[in-house]
């Protein structure tokens, strides 16, 4: 019943056995009927993307702000007394207003009060935003910032995860972010701000 | 239509009134019912303990006793599930084996029963009927499926069906589980009963006497103001 036991140390009579060969050989020795890859036809759903996305973002404990366009956002939000020079960003308009370039941030010990990053796609069914590596400057930024702001264009909203995986690319690294870091590991009490950002804002443009 | 009546062993021995109600109900609905006398048990207690091989003679006996019937009906979802799901294909009887409510609704096409039962009733949908035979929609899956048990109960005059907090959680009987995992089994049963009590049920009913026997045992030991009735007894409570 346990043939594996004899090979426990990856050794056989002739010496050390290549574990890759061992694993693949074992799989190939098992008789299995071929199973076809299932056909899938995922229909795009008729939903109001903005309404659904907005609702899901708020549900995750995040703030959602919506502006007509980039200029309105700068005028009404950025210029409303925010300490832009303490921010970190990869977004040129903010860098030109005094935010630090995320790519040049070197000391992980230094507190980042706020990072503002452009997201590439927003997913209406769950409020997640796809952030590729290029948008981060460096991979630590979305996690070290105490407040993370992601900017998404309304035209980049898709209905479901099926649609987003049809257009996003693996790149080197990328992730979906769907709210502030959270945990419910202590007696199932939801606590926002577990290890990453304490607060999360999504700015929807258009 | 000739129907072979299968009365599971624990009903035969301990709850004959459930067998009588099933027989009378089917006769009332116009069936010609025959009870083959040599019948014993479906073998589930053995097989669920892992002793399928020791159960094989019981399977063979079942097949022999019920040969020659196009339809075999039993007042138990669990025993029927065992025969149709766990018997080796070659040991299954030729005819179709039905749980009672399933037979009434899906074979006889009857959804209204002229019965009267003016009580507050909680339904315990036993797991093998619900998730095994799919007699209704369970709370786990996302599907629209008619609920044969509820349909029949709801047609009974004067009955008031109560809602539960956990409508289809297992009662904890589980055959030999009731003995080998006594502590969990009892706790599950007590929790089930208090759900029914909280919602004002006077009677707990269901398709399986096995679950009800477990709940009744707890109710009686605790002296609770609740009773159990097999669904056949309610459907046979004539106007």
């Amino acid at each position, binding site marked *: 019943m346990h043939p594996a036991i004899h090979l426990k140390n990856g050794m056989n009579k002739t010496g050390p056995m290549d574990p890759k060969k061992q694993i693949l050989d074992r799989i190939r020795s098992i008789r299995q009927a071929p199973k076809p890859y299932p056909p899938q036809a995922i229909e795009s759903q008729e939903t109001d993307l903005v309404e659904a996305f907005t609702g899901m973002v708020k549900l995750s404990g995040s703030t959602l702000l919506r502006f007509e366009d980039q200029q309105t956002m700068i005028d009404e939000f950025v210029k409303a007394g925010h300490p832009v020079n303490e921010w970190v960003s990869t977004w040129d308009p903010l860098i030109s207003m005094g935010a630090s370039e995320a790519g040049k941030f070197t000391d992980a010990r230094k507190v980042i009060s706020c990072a503002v990053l452009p997201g590439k796609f927003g997913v209406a069914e769950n409020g997640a935003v796809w952030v590729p590596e290029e948008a981060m400057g460096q991979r630590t930024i979305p996690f070290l910032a105490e407040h993370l702001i992601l900017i998404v264009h309304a035209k980049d909203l898709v209905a479901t995860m099926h649609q987003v995986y049809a257009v996003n690319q693996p790149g080197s690294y990328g992730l979906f972010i769907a709210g502030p870091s959270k945990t419910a590991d*202590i007696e199932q009490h939801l606590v926002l701000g577990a*290890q990453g950002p304490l607060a999360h804002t999504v700015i929807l443009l258009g | 239509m000739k129907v072979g009546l299968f009365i599971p062993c624990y009903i035969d021995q301990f709850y004959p009134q459930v067998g009588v109600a099933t027989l009378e109900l089917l006769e009332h609905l116009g069936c010609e019912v025959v009870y083959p006398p040599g019948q014993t*048990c479906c073998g589930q207690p053995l097989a669920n303990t892992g002793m399928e091989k020791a159960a094989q003679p019981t399977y063979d006996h079942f097949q022999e006793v019920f040969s020659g019937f196009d339809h075999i009906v039993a007042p138990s979802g669990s025993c029927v599930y065992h025969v149709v799901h766990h018997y080796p294909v070659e040991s299954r009887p030729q005819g179709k084996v039905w749980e009672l409510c399933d037979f009434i609704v899906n074979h006889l096409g009857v959804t209204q029963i002229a019965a009267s039962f003016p009580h507050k009733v909680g339904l315990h949908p036993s797991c093998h009927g619900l998730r095994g035979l799919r007699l209704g929609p369970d709370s*786990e899956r996302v599907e629209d499926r008619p609920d044969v048990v509820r349909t029949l109960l709801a047609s009974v005059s004067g009955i008031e069906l109560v809602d539960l907090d956990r409508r289809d959680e297992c009662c904890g009987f589980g055959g030999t589980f*009731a003995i080998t*995992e006594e502590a969990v089994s009892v706790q599950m049963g007590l929790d089930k009963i208090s759900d029914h009590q909280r919602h004002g049920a006077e009677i707990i009913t269901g398709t399986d006497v096995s679950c009800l026997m477990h709940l009744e045992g707890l109710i009686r030991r605790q002296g609770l103001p609740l009773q159990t009735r097999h669904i056949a007894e309610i459907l046979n409570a004539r106007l």
Partner: protein
Amino acid sequence: MSQHPEAAARFIADNERMAWHDRSIWNARKKRDLASHSIEEWEQLRSWASDIKEHTLAHLDHYLEVFEKQATANGVKVHWAATAEEHNRIVLGILRENEARHMVKSKSMLTEECHLNPFLEANGIEVIDTDLGERIVQLREEIPSHIVTPAIHLKKEDVSKLFEEKLHTEPGNADPTYLTREARKHLRAHFLACDAALTGVNFAVAETGTVVVVTNEGNSDLGVHLGKVQIHSMGIEKLIPKWQDLGIFTRLLARSATGQPISIYTSHYTKPRPDVPMHIILVDNGRTEQLSREHFRKSLACIRCGACMNTCPIYRRSGGHSYGSTIPGPIGSILTPGKDLKKYSPLPFASTLCGSCSDVCPVKIDIHDQLYRWRQIIAEEHLLPKYKTIPLGLAGRIFARGKRYDQAGRIARWWLRRLPAWMVNSRLNAWSKHRDLPNAPRNSFKEWYEQNRPHGS
């Protein structure tokens, strides 16, 4: 030998705590119901996920090779480990090669299964589990009691006491937000000081060589991006063929696990950072053996959402530790017997076969049918206790003959009617400890029938 009934009875003896455990996990089940019932095509997604997993398992050799090729092309070093020991030695080798002594680790049931922590610690490596729940059980020197919420068995007061002792938090302060913030400070210091990070893997995409890790806390990424070397340990069954398949699995996973529409972070690691080595370890450790068992193969489709634990009425009332296995609950009870049938033979019996686990499972593993199958094998291997085999063997002989059965029934009922109540409902027999036996009627149904329908119907 794992003794689930005894451990469960001890858990239930603290009745108030058991009821709290049951309620709080039932809440997760309710959230899962809300989330899944909001998706019309839920059952279709389950079918696709199940089919994709079955397809992958049927062609696992192919997809493993494709994955290795892609990941290697991405600049990742891929390792193969046939056993837990090999896996642990590979990890240690990578750490030594990179002169790493402080490793942070995000959630990985595989490394629990391999007992990686004690091995590394014995070799002078400091290992810090960074998922809050895992850190809590690590500080308590326990194993996780649940695969998604490892410290679900603990109350906030327990955590408060633990943190007071280990992290010097305010005595008596059991506020979850306060405790979480203190853990954050404590863990942040470890992230900043770490020189290596290891994660588990939720999905590995063959066609792109990507590994996907899902967390709510962000702890996987903090470690991976701050360490000098990143290691991802995965069972070989984590593979899926295509990037697009992630659409199906990410829709199912969090909804099944916690009822969230998606976890906070779904991270896709494909290529390493410049000058930071990235390693992926493909681990067998019994998986090919499970693959060879036709009836149990499908258990390898598990995506570790924990929904079967949350729904299991036995798990909720007996606690994860009662199973005595790395993975508790229904899925653990079909995976673990394959590791040591004798030791884990009580686990397939820690179920009423109610089938709820199979119906919540997002990849449609027929868990309760596999529990039933394991029971048959346990009996065949003569691992059933005599108190089961002797009476049931006798019953089997009685049930096979109508006359024998009628006679036995008559005798039993005759005694039950005559024995004094205290003896019938003796607390010495397990049925009657808390339950009355049914009243024994004078006549069986069969006898009634013979009297009332003398010529058949």
